[in-house]
């Protein structure tokens, strides 16, 4: 009997101690992490949306933690302890089959895009392997007052009627829009905060960093970096305007043969990319959704590369621009 007590009891006692030390105690301490400045609790509808997110296992494909690594810069600044004060359940995730969503509300604020994408991701990203969540939408003859039907491309739209988001989809959208990072805070309250990215040697170099960096060398007009332009376009613009530049009829305008893009004066083109556009007809068509501003996301050289890529692709023949042109337009302000 004594042997049994020693082996079963002894090891269980040791284990209980370790479970307290490595599970419960860190849990107690870290549960008290104060919210970072500007981090707020979720509203009712946002919390409902989070339940939809959890019920359908979005976090098996999407993380919500930005690491202090160069390759994670595209997803925002590194996550800080204070970001998670109101995140229960925690949805940090362990796999990135799809992109990190920590800052998706800022990166992709267009409700129209989000709805089309949720209805069927392949309508906007043909290579996507994300499931379709079409059951969160209703097909009705006529959209009820105050609700705009989702402008689906023909190939994905039902034969009859229009598609409107159900309350589930609306809550989910509200939650996605709530996922916005606050400005970087030096969180000194938690002793164990990982060092800020600048203090740590970068493990890797990132070819196309999207963080604004002043003084990037401007490509000359004749030799603009086409590969870089294409890559930046794919990363930032193609989900709406599509790789073909043809946009999605009724949702996002084509840039192919677009008047502004082919205009000899690049002012409007650059301005729209920097500061976005809303409610302005494009080539005679009015769009429900908005063009998001990129002035805080991309630096002058990057915007010049994208603008030049658009101006010289899909049969377009716009005059090319320089980073200085972008800087000048940026200086003019909105």
């Amino acid at each position: 009997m004594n042997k049994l007590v020693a082996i079963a009891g002894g090891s269980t006692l040791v284990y209980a101690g370790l479970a307290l030390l490595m599970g419960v105690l860190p849990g107690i301490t870290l549960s008290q992490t104060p919210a970072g400045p500007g981090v707020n609790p979720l509203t009712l509808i946002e919390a409902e949306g989070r339940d939809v997110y959890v019920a359908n296992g979005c976090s098996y494909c999407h993380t919500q933690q930005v690491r202090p690594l160069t390759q994670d810069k595209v997803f925002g600044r590194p996550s800080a302890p204070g970001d998670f004060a109101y995140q229960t359940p925690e949805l940090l995730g362990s796999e990135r089959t799809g992109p990190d969503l920590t800052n998706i509300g800022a990166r992709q604020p267009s409700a129209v895009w989000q709805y089309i994408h949720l209805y069927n991701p392949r309508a906007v990203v043909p290579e996507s392997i994300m499931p379709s969540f079409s059951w969160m939408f209703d097909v009705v003859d006529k959209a009820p007052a105050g609700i705009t039907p989702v402008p689906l491309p023909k190939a994905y739209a039902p034969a009859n009627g229009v598609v409107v988001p159900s309350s589930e989809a609306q809550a989910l959208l509200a939650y996605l829009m709530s996922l916005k990072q606050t400005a970087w805070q030096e969180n000194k309250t938690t002793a164990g905060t990982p060092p800020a990215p600048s203090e740590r040697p970068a493990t890797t170099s990132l070819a196309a960093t999207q963080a604004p960096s002043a003084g990037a060398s401007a490509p000359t007009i004749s030799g603009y970096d086409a590969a870089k332009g294409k890559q930046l376009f794919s990363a930032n613009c193609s989900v709406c305007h599509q790789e073909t530049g043809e946009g999605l009829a009724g949702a996002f305008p084509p840039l192919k043969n677009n008047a502004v893009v082919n205009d000899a004066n690049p002012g409007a083109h650059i301005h729209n990319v920097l500061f976005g556009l809303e409610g302005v007809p494009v080539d005679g068509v009015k769009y429900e959704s908005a063009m998001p501003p990129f002035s805080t996301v991309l630096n002058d050289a990057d915007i010049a590369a994208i603008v030049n890529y658009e101006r010289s692709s899909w049969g377009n023949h716009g005059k090319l621009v320089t980073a200085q042109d972008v800087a000048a337009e940026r200086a003019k302000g909105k």
Partner: protein
Amino acid sequence: MQPAAHPSSVLKQKDLELARVFAAYTISATAWLVFATFIGILLAYKFGAPDFGSGAWLTFGRLRPIHTNATFYGWASIALVGLAYYVAVRSCRTQLYSVRLAWVGLWLFNIAAIAGTIALDLGYNDGNLEYREWPWPIRLIFLSALLVTAWNLVGTVARRTTDDIYLSNWYTMGGVLWTCIIAVVAILPWYQYGLGQVAVSGYYMHNAVGMWFTPLALGIFYYALPKLLSRPIYSYALGVFAFWTNLVFYPIIGSHHFLFSPLPWWLQTTAIVFSVAMLVPVLGGSANFLLTMRGRFGQMRESYPLAFIFVGVIGYLVGSSQGTVEAFRSMQAVWHFTNYTVGHSHLTMYGFVNFAVWGCIYALLPAATGKYPGQAGLALHFWMALVGSFIYVLSLSIGGTIQGLNWIQGSPFIQSVVDMGPFHVWRGVGGILMFLSHVVFAWNVWCMTYGPSARAAPLVPALARDDTA
């Protein structure tokens, strides 16, 4: 079931009861294996055909936790508990403390797994916290099954007629008792807010695999391997040493699931240090098993159970060493969040735990029931499972590395999705072989229990009590 020997005495009656319990646990576990890996195939298929089965009930995010929880708590847990009971009774040369409790436990495990599966499919998911997604009331049912099992297992060992407690029982009793604590820590909510919950998740994920499946699988190795070879374990002392080091190091490494996260940096570093220290019990344990087999590896040609166990030992060694390498920050910078991790999960849970369970069932269940699977069935099961899982793990390891490098190079995200395409197809190919092997396994289990034995019961009564330790 058809008794192989006449229940002519009380002793025989007890043996028969034990055989029934063992068989029932195995059959029930097998049903879960076939179900859960069918879901696995469906998931793998969805990577190539995301619009397939796109209703709410068949959506990826609901099926995935069904797959993981059903393999963990339906298949592996139930199978291991059945084996643990049998090993406890035989190695202690006694009888089950309570046959009734064993049945109660089996029902509780199954009720929990069925309720959990239904709940997840309806969208009741407890926060997407991996491996504890079942709503907490259902996890309480699972906890009660664990408590019943712990009581029964400890009670059985307490009734032993041997003086010593054979090593196997250290691991199995320990595993069940510790897991009761894991389950309680995972359920209580008071210290699980925000980042606090992240710390608990890290703790939970690795303790579920490291303090539940690992000790149970190792425990049954310590019984079945000497039994198959009719020679004692190479070093009993080394086994005891591995037991204590495993106990002390494993619970500390949980945070390696959240490297580079906002968890305190020192917590992450501690986890990495002990992930390296884990080499001690892993190398010690594997060496012990391999040395027990020394000079007898050729015997695998005749004995499939031995071959299964050998693969299991190698899976333990390779999978865990891989884990240590994966835990370094420099490696995590590439592999974290990629399919490489999924490869590791299957190398360990499949290459180690599954092969361990299969080897031990094939080694021990016929001894309990007196019925045997056919050689062809064994061969089919072994080779399809081995080749299938090899393809599965290899394709995800290569693909996952490419995925990680893509991100480092700063390619648009979708590039990593496109580049994984062919590897996801290969994973599916491996997965189909694995699934087919499980169907064959189910047939073999049938042969070993209610169905037609492929071999006449040996003249020496199978139920003869034998000692191994």
